[in-house]
């Protein structure tokens, strides 16, 4: 397998992915979200409305710039809207192709299975980059004209890059689930189940972290208190934390290195699991 051949696979998978109507609709949604955020910010920042006796335009004085519009766009985009498209596209390109037997046709060619998986992940990564690129171009260009160019460009750019990494990690999780359940509907259900379990586990760990700080609890568990401390520290390593690594883009939230480390770990584990699954899969 040469690098040129792998590049050709990635390009082919990307062309295929972008030819799907769901992928095009997703890109259109990314543009709409960016435009909507820009429009909303512009309207609020120039309105006469009062909040707690102060004009809203004064409260939002610091946010009247293009980077702020980009940040608003990112916050709305990342409120699951674009992730829904990632679930759909990941399910279609892996489970959908297994069901439609087009994946079998690809694997009749002289390509190792891992390369097909890598090409599919690469295509999803390209789509995620395109959705962010569309949002960035619209927000930066129109935001600069409507709101001005001053502001924290570098910080917001870091937020977009971090979002790409988070969404790519999410896409690899979707691919792994798609290979396990092998149906589009099953993948959608599986991803939601994964997210729900992750959320509940996060809450449970939060409760344990809170309990670990209570003397009465520590005395009750005795010498096992170290285990309680360990579990209490696990929350930043959960998938939900990994998928939220981009949140450092907000001025109120610090960048968390554990989230990025968790994202890297999640990517590695899911990559290996997905590769093993496909390698062992009997294709109908």
């Amino acid at each position, binding site marked *: 397998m040469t690098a*040129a051949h792998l590049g050709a696979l990635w*390009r082919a998978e990307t*062309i*295929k992915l972008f030819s*799907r109507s769901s992928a095009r609709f997703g890109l259109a949604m990314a543009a709409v979200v960016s435009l909507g955020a820009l429009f909303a910010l512009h309207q609020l920042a120039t309105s006469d409305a009062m909040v707690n006796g102060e004009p809203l335009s004064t409260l939002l004085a610091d946010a009247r710039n293009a980077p702020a519009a980009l940040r608003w766009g990112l916050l709305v985009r990342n409120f699951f809207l674009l992730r829904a498209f990632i679930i759909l596209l990941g399910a279609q390109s892996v489970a959908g192709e297994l069901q439609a037997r087009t994946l079998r*046709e690809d694997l*009749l060619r*002289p390509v190792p299975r891992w390369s097909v998986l890598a090409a599919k992940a690469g295509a999803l990564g390209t789509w995620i980059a395109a959705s962010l690129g569309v949002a960035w171009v619209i927000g930066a260009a129109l935001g600069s004209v409507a709101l001005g160019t001053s502001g924290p460009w570098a910080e917001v750019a870091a937020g977009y890059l971090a979002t790409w990494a988070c969404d790519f990690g999410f896409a690899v999780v979707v691919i792994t689930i798609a290979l396990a359940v092998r149906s589009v509907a099953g993948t959608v259900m599986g991803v939601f189940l994964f997210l729900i379990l992750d959320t509940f586990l996060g809450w449970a760990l939060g409760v344990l972290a809170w309990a670990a700080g209570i003397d009465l609890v520590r005395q009750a568990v005795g010498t096992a208190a170290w285990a309680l401390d360990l579990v209490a520290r696990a929350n930043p390593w959960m998938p939900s934390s990994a998928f939220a690594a981009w949140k450092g883009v907000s001025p109120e939230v610090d960048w968390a290195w554990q989230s990025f480390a968790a994202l890297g770990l999640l990517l590695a584990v899911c990559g290996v699991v997905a590769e093993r699954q496909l390698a062992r899969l009997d*294709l109908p």
Partner: protein
Amino acid sequence: MSEPELALDVRGLTRTYGSRAAVRGLDLRVHAGDVYGFLGPNGAGKTTAMRCILGLIRKTEGTVRIFGEADPVRARRFVGAIVETPAFHDWMSGRENLALAAAFAGLGSDADREIARVLDRVGLTERAKDRAGTYSLGMRQRLGIARALLGGPRLLLLDEPTNGLDPRGMREVRELVRSLALHDRITVFLSSHLLAEVQVICNRVGILQDGTLRAEGPVDQLLAGRAKPQRIVEIGATQPTALAAALAAHPGVEVLGPGESGRTRVVLTDTTPAALLQALVRADAGVEAFVPEQRSLEDVFLEVTR
């Protein structure tokens, strides 16, 4: 004279599902230039064997070599295949589907020329820009063959290539396969239920039942070797009265009556075709046809898989 190169060399191929063996110790040799018919009743293990050969499903035991290459990924450089009904991205055109396959085949800058060649080869150039979802079954099958031909494979594996086609589509595909073998010198490994078709196209056949190969060899040898003595003969003569008299006078002959062609059908119960023919010539019966009835591949198949 040296043996032709082995296109496909399968030894001891076994695939089990739990305690059930779908394919059991299968040995196959397909030589370069063969058109090999792979036959067997439903559930005999043909499709499982073909998928194991192509590396789509894992084999439990055994080895598969394609033109001497045992590594399944490298071996697929020599192979084009259709497994059952070919699947396409229906929202993309025929040409776009082939472009994707060309990328997977690693054709690089030759892709456009190669796509034009295979489209022309299967007669789909005119419809190449139409969405694959609008193609008829026959066209989809031809597009599948076009895809299998990308990159100039030396071995074509076709699993039931005429499945679901109407008679016209079946004839198109049959003639295409025959032409690929004759003119393009591609070795063909073909599974089919249509035994008459296999008998016409293939020079060698293997008959699989319960996952094991029950009979294998050149079609003519298989027919000759398996056939019972040629006991039924159709005789056409210009002098029917002399023919009837000669048949009545010759011992060991039983007249069955006129056949579908209007000729007289007889059973040789205790004589040879040569002796009967000599007697008819001596009787001036005006013999213009003396045709021992051939057993068909279907007869052999039913005998082997009984």
